[in-house]
């Protein structure tokens, strides 16, 4: 199955039909998506700020991560589920939307940044867990994470202003407006 027909299949599935036909579904699902997304940002910000040494190095990095990241993951899966429902409802529109594609790239970037940090710098956390400045790589990971998540939210809002409108008129199309 090629990508365009996959998009059509997604758009035709039962949850997608429900999202399009139920009057209250879209506002509620969208509100859940925004709330959960904002929670992901707020919780990850606490971790990233700790990596940047804010407010101080008193609280252990591992403890901050352990407390916050379960909230982050929980909120992320809620947001992802709501996002999948919204995508399915208008798969064709979102798939072709530049802001949506960039948002997916930013999300991927945030994931890669996190994976690299946890796979490398974080392995030595015992040496800098508290009262000691976080290594440069850790601080960079924290700053990159904040930038990427802020971008995700800006791009997400931009989708709302561009979806359905950024299409290319095929070449050799004659548009004749009769007023």
């Amino acid at each position: 199955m090629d990508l365009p027909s996959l998009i059509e299949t997604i758009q035709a599935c039962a949850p997608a039909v429900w999202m399009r036909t139920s009057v209250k579904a879209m506002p509620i699902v969208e509100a859940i998506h925004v709330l959960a997304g904002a929670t992901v940002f707020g919780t990850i910000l606490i971790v990233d700020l700790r990596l940047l040494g804010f407010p101080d190095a008193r609280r252990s990095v591992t403890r901050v991560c352990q407390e916050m990241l379960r909230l982050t993951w929980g909120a992320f899966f809620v947001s992802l589920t709501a996002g999948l429902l919204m995508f399915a409802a208008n798969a064709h529109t979102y798939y072709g939307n530049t802001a949506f594609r960039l948002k997916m790239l930013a999300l991927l970037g945030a994931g890669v940044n996190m994976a690299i940090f946890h796979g490398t710098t974080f392995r030595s956390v015992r040496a800098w867990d508290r009262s000691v400045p976080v290594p440069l790589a850790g601080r960079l990971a924290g700053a990159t994470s904040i930038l990427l998540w802020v971008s995700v939210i800006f791009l997400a809002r931009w989708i709302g202003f561009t979806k359905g409108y950024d299409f290319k008129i095929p070449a050799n199309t004659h548009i004749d407006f009769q007023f």
Partner: protein
Amino acid sequence: MHGFAAWLQGTPASNAIKTVSWLVPLLQSLHILTIGVVFVSSLMVALRVLGLMRTDESFEAVWSRFAPWIWWGLGLMAATGLILVVAEPVREFSTLSFWMKMLLVASGVTSTALYGRSLRVAARLAPVQFSVGAKTASVLIIVLWLAVIFLGRAIAYDREVWGSLSLRT
């Protein structure tokens, strides 16, 4: 009220905000980012009272850590919100969701201020456990902020959400 909204919508200020293409999305994005900060900061305080998070710190320490983010965040949201309302007053004022949201925001701000003050006193007197009342208040404030967030999104869908109760009918 509709007359005032219609007048405001025609002012140079309102037109200036609307015509800069990136301004409304920028303000809305800042509004959403700040929602994350304020909601999670309030959640941290509430979870501390419930004994579920940061129990290695005193309530005073948790309050000092997060209260400034709550207050500054609410201030930024008031500023971005005000500019957004000036840009599209008719759209906001003609919805039940907007007015309910404003009512709940006022309640949330008042509750947080009173709650913070009384709990800091309580924590000094009985530092180990908070009362059932304090814990209930914690849950209720979070529920209130959740309602505010839902109402904020509902502004764009006022008729679908409220049906005949919507002021848009």
